[in-house]
């Protein structure tokens, strides 16, 4: 049950993707700023962030704890409203959209994988996967559904409820749900944060495969340099600002940069 389908899994350190071919922009942030609190207690989680996420790419966001990774992702995923700046998703400026339109946008154009608590406990895996489509009242393409669940290897788990699934299986079900609606972009906040290395590798391979085989766009927050090495690009956040941008990252490069980041801190 831990087999990961029939996907071509690319070794993480053999990054051969040519970036120029797919330069269509799936999501973009312009001058994105987010502050919490007032006066003394004021925290600037995001500080005038300009970033673009290209279509058909797997982008990783890294940075120290509290650097604003989750905040960036939430603002870009229409889960949170920025204090200033604009967010454009799939060509739509979402900055001034009302809750109803934002909800529809999330439902129809975005996919989510969270670190934990991804599934509705009362629904079976199958029902969880089709939930956004059911909410929208849309029909599930059965061919695509089969492809997704076979790729994730969860066909024999479809009738189970979340509490009958392992953490890795739950994350795979969450991935299947995120992908089923063919969203413009999938946001994943530490999708492997609670998993062991083997289960992590399976999830990351699957995310990679869905980019390569289905042209899915994915933005993923992670603390794990090996996870970042699955990505086409890694951006580093520190104190709410993008401080570094690595194309086609490999594990040594990422590790080296993280050490470089830590260095001055130790001295201070």
């Amino acid at each position, binding site marked *: 049950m831990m087999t990961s389908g029939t996907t071509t899994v690319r070794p993480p350190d053999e990054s051969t993707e040519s970036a120029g071919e797919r330069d269509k922009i799936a999501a973009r942030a312009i001058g994105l700023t987010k502050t919490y609190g007032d006066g003394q207690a004021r925290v600037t989680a995001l500080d005038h962030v300009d970033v673009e996420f290209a279509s058909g790419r797997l982008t990783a966001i890294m940075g120290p704890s509290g650097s604003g990774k989750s905040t960036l992702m*939430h603002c870009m995923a229409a*889960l949170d409203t920025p204090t200033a700046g604009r967010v454009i998703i799939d060509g739509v400026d979402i900055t001034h959209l009302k809750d109803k339109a934002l909800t529809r946008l999330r439902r129809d154009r975005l996919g989510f994988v969270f670190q934990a608590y991804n599934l509705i*406990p009362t629904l079976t895996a199958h029902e969880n996967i089709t939930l956004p489509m059911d909410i929208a009242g849309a029909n599930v393409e059965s061919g695509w559904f089969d492809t997704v669940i076979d790729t994730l290897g969860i066909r024999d788990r479809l009738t189970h409820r979340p509490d009958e699934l392992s953490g890795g299986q739950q994350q795979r079900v969450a991935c299947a749900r995120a992908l089923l609606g063919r969203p413009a972009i999938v946001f994943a906040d530490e999708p492997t944060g609670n998993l062991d290395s083997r289960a992590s590798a399976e999830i990351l391979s699957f995310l990679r495969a869905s980019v390569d085989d289905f042209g899915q766009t994915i933005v993923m927050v992670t603390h794990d340099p090996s996870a970042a090495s699955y990505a086409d690009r890694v951006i580093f956040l520190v104190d709410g600002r993008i401080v570094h941008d690595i194309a086609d990252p490999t594990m040594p490069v990422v590790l080296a940069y993280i050490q470089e980041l830590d260095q001055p801190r130790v001295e201070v």
Partner: protein
Amino acid sequence: MRRVTLRGLQGHLVRLLLTAAAVMLGVSFVTGTFVLRDSFDRALTGLVAGSTAGLDVSVRGTRIGGGDGTRAPVSLELVDTLSAVPGVARVTPDLQGVAIIAGSDGNAVRTNGAPGLGFAFADDDPAFKLIAGRGPTHADEVVVETVTLDKAGLGVGDRTRAVIGATTRPVTITGEVEFGVLFGATAVLVDQATAVREFAPDGTVASITIGAQPGVSQGELATAVADVLPDATEAVTGAAVNAEHESAVQQGLGYATTFLLVFAGVALFVGAFIIANTFTMLIGQRARELALLRALGASRNQVLGSVMGEAAVVGVVGSVLGMGLGILVAHGAKAAIRALLGVDIGSDLPVTSATLLISLAVGTLVTMVSAILPARRAARTAPVAAMRADTPIAQKGLRRRGTAGGVLLLVGAGVLGSSVARDDVPWVLAGIGSFVAVIGMLVGAPLFTRPVVRVVAWPFVVVSGVVARLARQNALRVPRRTAATASALMIGLALVAGISVLAQSVKASVTEGVSNELTSDFVLTVSGGVSTVPPTVAEDARTLAQAGSVAAVSLVPVTIGDFSTPAAAVEAGPISENFRISMSEGRLASLKDDHVLVDHSTAATQGWRVGDTLIATVGTLGKHELVIGAIYKDSQAFSSHVIVDRGLYEAAVPLGLRVDREIFITAAPGADQTELRAALLDIVRPYLVVSVQDKDEFAKAEGGAIDNLLNLLYVLLFFSVVIAVLGIVNTLALSVLERTREIGLLRAIGLQRRQLGAMITIEAIATAVFGAVLGTVLGLGLGVALQRGLESQGLNTLGIPWGLIVIMLMASVLVGVLAAVAPAIRSTRLVILGAINRV
């Protein structure tokens, strides 16, 4: 640990306030009941004292046949004898009868069937006070009590018509008097001569009031008076009369208080469910926190104490709020009583410390007892639970509990069913059976959750798909909780359903019985209350050419041993022409002289047979020999258990007290019904209060008599339903809180606010309807059983109030919607991120 308790209270303030609200409603019932009782007590004590003002000694007849039989009348001739007794200052015969005036609209002035009383006017009578005009001097003048006059829309100097005793005449209102509390009765006063003529036509009265000369004590006077009294009369002191009235008042109040407290008990019982449920949920949500406390070294008793401390605070707060609400409710009830009965029970309401103490104790105790089980569960939390992630709520034992509930339900139903099937119903056993069945339903309810909620949610699933499916799954998530939430509604509605089946059956039985047994075309009656038809109406009706047969029915109290009943006095001939009375033994024609008829069930329970001779008290006749002439089948149209001959009635009831209860009239062969009706209307018009009903109208009116009582019961049960609604609100709000992250997730992946609101509303509806369905089934079962049990007592037609059941189920949908409003709004206000990030 005190700090933990305080923080616990703080953290769940709203939840606990809602729980306190459930306590509050129950307690308000208790407080209200006691406050009302005390006000009535005070008002009535004042009234009793007022009504015996100027009464130092009362002369009255002794009870005929002893026990609590009727009293013999006292001759007016005694007045002169009594006046001659030394120490007597004043002798007033208590002349009292029927007197009713027509208001400015020409209709009789009456309140809800309360009697229209007539008294004799005397300038020096301390029982009332002349506040305007002067007393009556001859038969065409009356003085009217002030509230009555107000109701009539008339004033001093106006002319109107009045029924005084048996005669109707035009009168002039010469004055206005003030009385104590009349409890809705109207009062008209006439001059002494008229009073004697109309209220004591045979020269007898019920009692004579004697006032003492200054310096003569009541006791001395009573002894002096007793010396001159003939047989079968007695002299009692004013103090003794007061005490008698007082104890009668206390007894009546005791019944009323018990009756109200039963409903307070139901409300508190329902509230207990909600309290237990809320604490269970609060503790479930704090399982990790409690486990952490245990891991840090808190003992079980400390955890238990902390939870019980919370319960105590909730109980006290709820009780105190309940007292306040109860006092408000009592004020409302007072206003309603004044509006409906015209009784003012005093301007301020006495709130005694006993009332407050009882309310506080009851509310706090109920809360703490309800919280004991959840608190013990909390204390048993294993310290290791703190380490575990989300501990799923234990679901085991559901089947076992369901089986136990099912068995109890079946056993209870079996016992109840077999009890009521017996001829001589063992009511205690039937009661135990019902109780066991109710407990079984409560215990087994979680197992019924799945099937019932599935069916209830089905239409929603068809219409709104996944949203309703989510709602259904939520309702089924913790069946115990859903069941406990629904139980509160279940109990309230089971009582409503049971009572209404009984009421409907009474109506159906009466209506059917009356229309089957009654053959007459018209009935002359005074609708509602204790008033009666003057005997002259029957005499007038007999003169009509269109009337073929006129049967007057009067009542006379008959006591045989321990058995006492108002017997119907009729003539055999006319009654057989107006009724279809089926005999089970003997013939109707045997009703003659001292031969009486007895209905079947009475004969059976008393062991009487045709031909038996019984020593009875009939009206004023003591130790009278009666012979059972025949036994008739129990009758609806004829609610009396014993029928005596008219001749015996005339011998037993003084002329002035003879009145008819109903007059049945069958048209002469070939006579026109419309003409007969018109002629009858002409006859009754002067009597103001007598109405003409045809057979159908009469049947309906007889059956409808139960409606007022029914409405009162519904109002009282409404409290329990409100508490049940609070319970649903509480459970929903808590489970929304519990599912915050899940709701955040749903919102993140695209559930609209509206859909979220719909989800919670459907969950609430499913819960409410579930409770309503269980309650209705339970209530129907109990109601039907009760009807079967009472079948031999004449409740032979089962009436199912389908309309009410449909209304109840629809109302439960509304209850669900109402209960969902606050939690739904709350849930849609959840910030998605806050929800997701919550650990």
